[in-house]
């Protein structure tokens, strides 16, 4: 490889910040979209304001928190099955 270490995109913490703020912006726009798009809901829950964003956010947080607890019960060393 090169002798001089090359600067890469995320070596600069400001770029990481920019990426995160872009995500916040996109989320805000997506949420506001609920005011503008008429939804023919197949189910009453779907028509609730912010149903999809809240459900997506909640599902992921729940998923990770439950999985973290599962680790306490399920996690073993790499050689667990090799007697």
């Amino acid at each position, binding site marked *: 490889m090169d002798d001089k270490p090359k600067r890469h995109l995320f070596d600069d913490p400001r770029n990481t910040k920019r990426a995160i703020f872009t995500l916040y912006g996109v989320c805000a726009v997506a949420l506001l979209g609920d005011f503008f*798009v008429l*939804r*023919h809901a197949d189910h009453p829950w779907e028509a609730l304001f912010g149903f*999809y964003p809240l459900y997506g956010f909640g599902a*992921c947080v729940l998923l990770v928190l439950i*999985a973290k607890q*599962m*680790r306490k019960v399920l996690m073993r060393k*790499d050689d667990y099955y090799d007697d």
Partner: protein
Amino acid sequence: MTSAAPFLIFFLGAALTAVTRGTLRAIVLLAVPLAGALNLYALGEGIHLEAALFDYRLEIVRVDRLSLLFGYLFHLAAFIAILFSLRLRDTVQHVAGLLYAGSALGATFAGDLITLFVFWELLAITSVVLILARRTERANRVALRYLIIQVLSGVILLSGALVIAHETGSIEFGYIGLDGLGSWLIFLAFGIKCAFPFLHNWLTDAYPEATPTGTVFLSAFTTKVAVYALARAFPGTELLVYIGAAMTMFPIFFAVIENDLRRVLAYSMINQIGFMVCGIGIGTALAVNGAVAHAFNDVVFKSLLFMSMGAVLHRTGKIDGSALGGLYKSMPKTAALCIVGAASISAFPLFSGFVSKSMVMVAVLEEGHPIVWLALLFASAGVFHHAGIKIPFFTFFSHDSGIRCAEAPRNMLIAMGLAAIICVFNGSYPWVLYSMLPFPVDYAPYTAAHVLTQSQLLFFSALAFCWLKLSGLYPPELPGINIDAEWSYRKALPAVVRWALRIGGPARTSVVARAERRLEATFLQIYRHHGPSGLLARTLSTGSTALWVAVLLGLTLLMYYL
């Protein structure tokens, strides 16, 4: 134009591959799926090869809309996997790969249960070679477990087929439905290969242990043959709706805490098959179309993801999330292609998962399963979380592992590029795929509401990941394994057997000793009469025999005169 049985082209190609080397072999390898696809086009629908077995009629090659779609899919998958493995210097893997793909085609076009059984077992035998080809002690043990379970599935299938043949007098492979012992056995056999909950661990056990190229082959065929078989034999079976929902749900939890990234993909594979199984269980035209379309898309984006992880493993020799990170610096193209696969499996608008998964989701609501729908929606957010974010993030971004390697070889990049193009094409212009589905499609994926709601779901899932990561709540990637249902046969069963041997040891010794004494006495008795010096085994010389015969004849003559 004359045409051949689809599997024969692959088997013949495998034979040619075994005797060729270098460029010539590369040409043979690439020509096989192309020639196969042309042949399939020429074949058209209908029954093309029949044979008789006793009173039964075997339909060895039967082509209809459903099998034709899977047939083309398997040719495409084989082509991509071959391209990915082109520079490999391993005859065994090339030959096994072609035989495996050929077996999948054989099973797809099987018109009767006996032919299906034969190719079902061939799938097991040919694919296990791709695991053994890793040539490690660990892979050998995994391969044995894999083979036992796969062959068992075949044996159960054959048992079911025989029961059905006995009851109905027909072995046709068509709609079966859950009714009677034979159908349940076949359902179970399909369920094993389809990775139903508790029957799923062969997949998460074996796929991450195969060679980098082997896993690409493996991910395309076995489970999708099972999905095809379910779609043919059990559409509209309500039980499948709940099995499918469970399959979408439980693997995502394991995927979040799993460290081996190819095992994460194996779990996410079960999650995706869950959507298909659910659609087949609903059984309406929209649902089955969705299931089949999703199977098509899944094969392509899942091989893209397995290829990107295979390329990483190939270049770095590592595949654990805890050991990787920052690879976008060394492998930017692989990273970009991996992200296309991640976007497709997460069902982002313009990517392939978007146009197929939603068909199943809508059908689930239309048929009145709101709870199942909520589960699928949860799983949709979850799949983005573990396959869409976790895979690319921990491999290519996250903390810099310090690994600096070369970009993936060109043939691998081309294979991944081809898969990525198909992902985007099917996602942006789904009509070609839709036109091949078993039922006419009356579904518009690109409505403003669908695009918006799916984007909201995904962006807020990403937001959740971001928040959990920044707040330190996100569990770190740790070396280690997580126990799953396989614990029952890898830990509990051996322990029970060892315990039984220990407890039963003295009793066993006395029984064995008594049996040995009895046997010994019997053998001694036999030896006494039939042994070398035994009366009944004694041989006489020819001369003395002739003399005794002469004496007997003389006596007979004397008696006659008297």
